[in-house]
């Protein structure tokens, strides 16, 4: 098995000491009205990715998420683009990114004067930012410097038998080598409270896990939404409990160190659960992960430099900022969507490969992607993103209606 010592590659050192596997520029827009201009600025700029928040009213969760992405280890510099009317402040985002030691800039479209001038202005800023990050120090990285997340979507009967168990074994290797692993989807741990709590590393982790589980179950009951989709059922999964057992297999077998919230990075090495479920709030729960992309964004906000995506039914999505590696345990899906699938865990089900051998292959692929080899969605140009209104750690209502 590759050890932390035997697998080393060059990454980019960030001022906070974290290391990136890419050196990207991030363009952020602060309202839907600035979305077209932001994308036009990034067009034909392969090292420039775009994210943004559509709402005009701001949301603390969305602001934290954008800041976590702009100060991500894979991001070297950022440009915030606003229209000018909206609550979310492009200037404050850029200021905080600068305070993290990264070059950053911002402008408002209304002040700059229209579409074409804003795109030209943005492009010229981009070129300046690029020249400022081209000499960022390259430093050796090992598995101990990696945070890897795993999400599953489009699950079928193979996901819990091959795709997720292979990731689980891979997570065991990563954790043993001193790295950080994050899994999420507490709404896909329904019925598993006991086995989840048995994995707690210590009493405080146990408390955090119990709280996260109870919130997820009460969330699902209250919104009458359970995290399963038509494709899951067509693929042979019948109940949320069954899907949950398969999804939980991605956590591997190591103790869980605790729970991180969206936009929070694991404070120490080991396996962590991310809680992305909205908190109870005076505006009601809202939605949790309305699509796969939303969950992937959460994992990236937790500092994951690489994200694994297990899909039995198949998917073509990618992600900005951190390369997405797409894994399927369904050999049929792998054959049908070879252009999009990075990894065939179906060999485990056909008996052609052991779980261990498959996990080691996945480790080798992850190391190649960490060293700069583009993953399939990355190569195809997939950079789907989704930032929504959500309430997590929202301060209580202080002001509002005078009526």
């Amino acid at each position, binding site marked *: 098995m590759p050890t932390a010592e035997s697998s080393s590659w060059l990454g980019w050192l960030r001022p906070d000491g974290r290391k990136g596997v890419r050196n990207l520029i991030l363009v952020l827009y602060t309202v839907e009205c600035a979305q077209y201009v932001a994308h036009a600025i990034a067009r034909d700029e392969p090292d420039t990715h775009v994210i943004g928040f559509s709402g005009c009213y701001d949301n603390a969760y969305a602001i934290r998420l954008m800041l976590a992405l702009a100060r991500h280890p894979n991001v070297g510099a950022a440009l915030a683009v606003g229209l000018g009317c909206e609550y979310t402040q492009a200037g404050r985002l850029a200021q905080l990114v600068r305070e993290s030691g990264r070059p950053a800039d911002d402008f408002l479209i209304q002040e700059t004067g229209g579409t074409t001038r804003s795109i030209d202005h943005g492009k010229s800023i981009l070129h300046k930012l690029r020249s400022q990050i081209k000499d960022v120090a390259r430093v050796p990285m090992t598995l101990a410097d990696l945070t890897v997340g795993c999400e599953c979507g489009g699950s079928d009967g*193979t996901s*819990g*038998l091959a795709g997720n168990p292979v990731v689980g074994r891979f997570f065991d290797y990563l954790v043993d080598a001193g790295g950080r692993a994050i899994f999420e989807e507490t709404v896909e741990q*329904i019925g*598993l409270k006991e086995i989840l709590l048995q994995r707690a590393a210590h009493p405080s982790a146990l408390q955090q896990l119990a709280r996260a589980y109870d919130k997820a179950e009460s969330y699902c009951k209250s919104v009458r939404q359970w995290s399963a989709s038509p494709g899951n*059922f067509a693929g042979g999964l019948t*109940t949320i*409990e069954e899907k949950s*057992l398969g999804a939980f297999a991605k956590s591997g077998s190591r103790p869980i160190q605790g729970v991180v919230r969206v936009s929070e990075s694991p404070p120490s090495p080991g396996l962590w659960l991310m809680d992305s479920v909205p908190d109870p709030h005076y505006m009601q729960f809202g939605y949790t992960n309305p699509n796969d992309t939303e969950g992937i964004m959460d994992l990236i906000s937790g500092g994951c430099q690489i994200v694994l995506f297990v899909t039995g039914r198949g998917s073509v999505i990618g992600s900005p900022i951190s390369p997405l590696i797409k894994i399927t345990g369904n050999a049929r899906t792998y054959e049908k969507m070879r252009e999009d699938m990075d990894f065939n865990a179906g060999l485990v089900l056909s008996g052609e490969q052991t779980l261990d051998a498959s996990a080691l292959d996945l480790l080798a692929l992850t190391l190649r992607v960490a060293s700069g080899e583009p993953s399939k969605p990355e190569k195809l140009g997939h950079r789907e993103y989704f930032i929504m209104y959500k309430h997590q750690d929202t301060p209580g209502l202080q002001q509002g209606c005078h009526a």
Partner: protein
Amino acid sequence: MESFNRNPVRAIRIHPLDNVATLLDDAVPGPVQIVGHEKMVVAALDPIAAGHKMAIAASSTGQSILKYGLSIGHAVRNIAAGEWVHLHNLASNYDQRSSTLDLQTGAPTDTSHAYR
């Protein structure tokens, strides 16, 4: 999985307590080789697609259906060994909507009023 019409058709029983096995190949009515814990042959009574479940023991209404050694819901009618186990005879202990989905496609049937 080079061929999906293997002979014999295989299904995996993950845990010794399980009363269902997951098809690794597409099954037609006829013998299915159960792999995993305790090898045995069960005759499939229905066509069952790979990834779907087959009962390997009879269950009566209300009884827990076990996979991974844990409950994944309860039987909503008597199930014979060899039957396809899915939305028509297995219900979640949590989620009520899943029992209303189309058996073959999983498509929702409760939002038809919006498609007009």
